[in-house]
């Protein structure tokens, strides 16, 4: 990756809005921060004096912790705000909350929200930098970036890889961000799900669509297995967890028919015995814990780049 691109965006809202060069710049920057996370003293002064607010409208341990650690390793001050009910119920709107937080003279808002597009709306209302930590079914850009970072470190490249995303595509922000990112970097992406969980027109995002798990696994260099959320709206049309596991669950038997070094990813948390068996989750092809580790480096890169964005002349 070359580093000629300068980061000019105030916000990181989604991979749909980034160019290939910008995505590569984040991955390149993450590689140097990865090195920091392996040191004895895992801290650099890059964001000293900056304040990062994690504004989470949805429960999340993993992403919030990862962002918090990333900010701390860059020496930023971190505040966590968790709002359980939606803004409407609480009586303060997202925009008002954002402006109030900004009035505390903070620099970056990392926002997780159950409504798609909430970070887009927030970013227009505040001058602070906004990083999307997952919004509704829309995007989860840092998750896709850490998936790509992990893939690249495992297989040496992204261009030309066959990557299959398996699971609830319809309700997955991880799927959408991965599709944007992977296709921009030249991977061939297949999405695989029961027909009811394949959203209308997804093929227009440049992916192959199938409901046949063998087709999705056949030529795959890597698979990204999504968490099945049976409690979520829209899944009433699928009969049961067991039925899902039988048809789409990733097992050792299924892996045996795949490329030997197939990379198995999962954004977590895993439902063992639903989308994949424990043997696969803990097996030699699994990079699930490496993804978690890489998440910190990728989020350090995202925080660093938006914090020092050279905004393009308007």
């Amino acid at each position, binding site marked *: 990756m070359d580093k000629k691109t300068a980061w000019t965006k105030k916000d990181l809202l989604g991979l749909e809005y980034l160019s290939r060069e910008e995505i590569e710049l984040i991955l390149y920057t993450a590689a140097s921060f990865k090195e920091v996370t392996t040191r004895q003293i895992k801290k650099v002064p890059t964001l000293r004096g900056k304040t990062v607010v994690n504004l989470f409208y949805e429960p999340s341990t993993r992403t919030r912790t990862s962002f918090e650690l990333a900010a701390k390793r860059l020496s930023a001050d971190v505040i966590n705000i968790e709002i359980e009910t939606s803004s409407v119920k609480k009586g303060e709107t997202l925009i008002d909350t954002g402006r109030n937080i900004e009035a505390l003279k903070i620099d970056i808002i990392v926002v997780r929200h159950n409504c798609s*597009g909430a970070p887009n709306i927030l970013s227009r209302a505040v001058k602070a930098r906004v990083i999307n930590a997952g919004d*509704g079914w*829309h995007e989860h850009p840092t998750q896709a970036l850490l998936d790509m970072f992990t893939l690249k470190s495992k297989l040496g490249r992204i261009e030309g890889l066959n990557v299959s995303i398996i699971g609830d595509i319809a309700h997955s922000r991880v799927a*959408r961000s991965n599709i944007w990112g992977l296709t921009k970097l030249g991977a061939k992406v297949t999405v695989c799900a029961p027909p009811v969980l394949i959203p209308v027109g997804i093929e227009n995002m440049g992916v192959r669509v199938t409901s046949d798990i063998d087709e999705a696994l056949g030529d795959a260099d890597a698979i990204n297995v999504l968490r099945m959320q049976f409690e979520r709206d829209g899944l009433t049309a699928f009969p049961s967890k067991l039925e899902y596991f039988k048809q789409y669950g990733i097992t050792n038997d299924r892996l045996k028919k795949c490329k030997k070094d197939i990379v198995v990813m999962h954004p977590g948390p895993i439902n063992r015995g639903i989308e994949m068996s424990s043997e696969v989750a803990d097996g030699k092809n699994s990079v699930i814990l490496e993804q978690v580790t890489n998440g910190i480096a990728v989020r350090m890169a995202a925080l660093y780049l938006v914090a020092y964005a050279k905004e393009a002349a308007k």
Partner: protein
Amino acid sequence: MVSRWHMKYLIKGGHVIDPANKIDGIFDILICDGKIEKIGKDLGIKRDEVIDAKGKIVAPGFVDMHVHLREPGREDEETVYSGTRAAIKGGFTTVACMPNTEPPTDNPAAANTLRAIIKKDAACNVVIVGTITELRQGLKLTEFLRMKEAGVTAFSDDGSSVDDWALLAGALSEAAAQGLVMIEHCEDKKLSAGGVMNAGFMATKMGLKGISGASEYERVQRNIDLARKKLSGIHIAHVSCKESVDLIRKAKRDGVKVTAETAPHYFALTEDCCAAYDTNTKMNPPLRSKEDVEAVKKGLADGTIDTIATDHAPHTDAEKDVEFDSAPFGIIGLETALSLAVTELVDKKVLSWSELIMKMSANPARILRIEKGALSAGSSADIVIIDPDKEYIYKKDSIGSKSKNSPFIDWKLKAKVTHVFMGGKPCLL
């Protein structure tokens, strides 16, 4: 001193287009005592005031059969006072106000109360629409005839469809027997539940739940079937999708007494406009695909769609400045309808000026069974004068409506209303 009411006005040299009376040419119009006295060439008689309409189009004041004035209950969004003034700015001299107020117009007393507010505050004619069912709950029909006596002109549960077939069949039987105007909002809420924009690739990309065309057109089909069976008329509100247009076209050919409206945003915007999660692109039915927009235009051109109604739906900034999922549906439309229609329909040769004016005046008046929408001698002088080529930027601070929820703010628009006569009185714009 002579009051303005009794002054004579001469609108001179304008291009008068009055489709109902088959007038389309350069004429003068003489207004006296609130009424149109005469239309003719070179009316050089003694008069009080001349309005030079050279280069302008002079037409019957527009009739908008689908407006939310929000009063009573949501006076923070709009009132009869503010909404009717917004209507005048847009060239409308008659608006039909939908009954989904708080409380709804679902009984004679509510209609009387509203009538009193209208008498006190309205700047234009207001036609009262009452509900079809009590509280718009779809469970029990309202007292159509007593409400009619209290001044209700048409009936609709707008915002909701009457889910119960038998109940709507009853309402249509009554409508056929008593000559009532029934307007249906076509939406199967089981199909549209949770949806916030058109179901399709844009919704997929944006991660938003879709509202399929089926939720609309299946109800259109049902309503056509019931109207056919009950020999009743039925008016289909805010048609947005291709299948609805096709069904209505076929029903009209079969002789079913169905009429239909669409709103300017259904021919001026597509679902692509939602991309930035601007909640002023959220309406119900939602903005549809390019194919749907083309079908709506075709429906307007071939007469399938009778009228352009704005579905003027005011919401405050505070209500709209939220997440796309949380925002209320709807946009204001009274002040932009004409310009959008001229840009999208007249300039693009979908409709002639005369056809457009017909769809904004004579046709809705005919559907509502009111004596409006024509420049007949002796009729109330409700007249709009338009500068057809005037270009302007639609600015937020120019909006007359109390709410500013428009996706067209800062758009460059064309064709501007320059004068409105309401009951023979010139209105300040």
